């Protein structure tokens, strides 16, 4: 009886078979180069993020310094500045959080990835609909000012602006749809993984 139980609890033969798998030597120099390349890419991305935010904020400051010639209402420019600063800070924080998640326990990591994927999906959805709403508002505004003769620009300028923005909205919506499909598939796989981890 004891011998049988010992055999059941004994992993040594399985361990021997498992550990006998042939392995190749690591190319550590190659790996180190790749690690360096990725670290540099992350830094460049972070700097680019800050640079774009800096340019956007600089433009807002420049607009505010025009005083009464500001092309947009001042509260709107300030709100825009807050959005840019907030979004940049949030994006950097998210990147840092994602980097730290590498050593989470598996179930915590899956939960984290699930939440992160849902957030990304939500951002794309909201951005796409917001972009469409802004474009619609712009188009209605153009129709209004042209109809009542209050337009400072000629009709073809408005047409170009609306056409170009329509193109941007269309490209973003297509990209959002494509990414959304991929993210939804990822969510389903993560949910399946969560179930597997719980059931095991």
């Amino acid at each position, binding site marked *: 009886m004891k011998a049988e139980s010992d055999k059941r609890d004994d992993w040594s033969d399985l361990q021997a078979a498992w550990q006998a798998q042939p*392995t190749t030597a690591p190319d550590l120099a190659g790996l180190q180069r*790749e690690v360096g390349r990725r670290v540099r890419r992350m830094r460049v991305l972070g700097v680019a993020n800050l640079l774009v935010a800096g340019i956007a904020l600089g433009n807002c400051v420049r607009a505010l310094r025009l005083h009464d010639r500001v092309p947009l209402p001042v509260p709107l420019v300030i709100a825009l500045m807050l959005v840019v600063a907030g979004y940049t800070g949030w994006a950097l924080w998210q990147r840092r959080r994602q980097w730290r998640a590498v050593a989470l326990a598996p179930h915590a990591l899956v939960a984290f990835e699930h939440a992160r994927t849902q957030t990304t999906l939500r951002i794309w959805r909201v951005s796409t609909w917001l972009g469409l709403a802004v474009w619609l508002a712009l188009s209605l505004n153009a129709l209004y000012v042209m109809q009542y003769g209050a337009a400072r620009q000629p009709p073809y300028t408005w047409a170009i602006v609306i056409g170009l923005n329509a193109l941007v909205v269309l490209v973003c919506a297509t990209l959002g749809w494509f990414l959304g499909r991929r993210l939804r598939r990822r969510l389903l796989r993560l949910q399946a993984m969560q179930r597997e981890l719980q059931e095991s």
Partner: protein
Amino acid sequence: MDAAGVALREHWPLLVRIARSHARDPARCDDLLQEMAIAAWRAMPRWRGDGSLRAFIARVAHNRAMDALAARPGKDVALDIEIPDPHGDPLERADADQRRDRLLGVVRGLPVGQRQVVVLALEDFSQREIGQALGLEENAVAQRLSRARRQLREALGDRE
């Protein structure tokens, strides 16, 4: 070579076997192995000595594998890289290879939570270390191991 490189060299076979337990296609396995090694290399400075280093490396490797599984589910073909041992009896070798391949196949077929526990047990981790690596209580590890061991024995056709 820094300390992370030295540790990685030491635990390389562990990473190779973890990668193989999650990916069958050699190209995919190599990609996964590279991702695991890079993640482990970059995460190593954050190891504070709470628990063993190999448990930490195993955790990072398994996490990377799960991320890869979430990005692309496993539907690859069973083609393992074979590096034949030039020494030894060919018949014995063929028998051992067959048993090893069957074991690998059975391990890959386990649900992910059980697979992680089994792979670490096969790597000779103690139940405590498995718990550290996977963030599980020791009794949960014991339960999973007991279930998985039965499945493994049955699938491999061993008599208990």
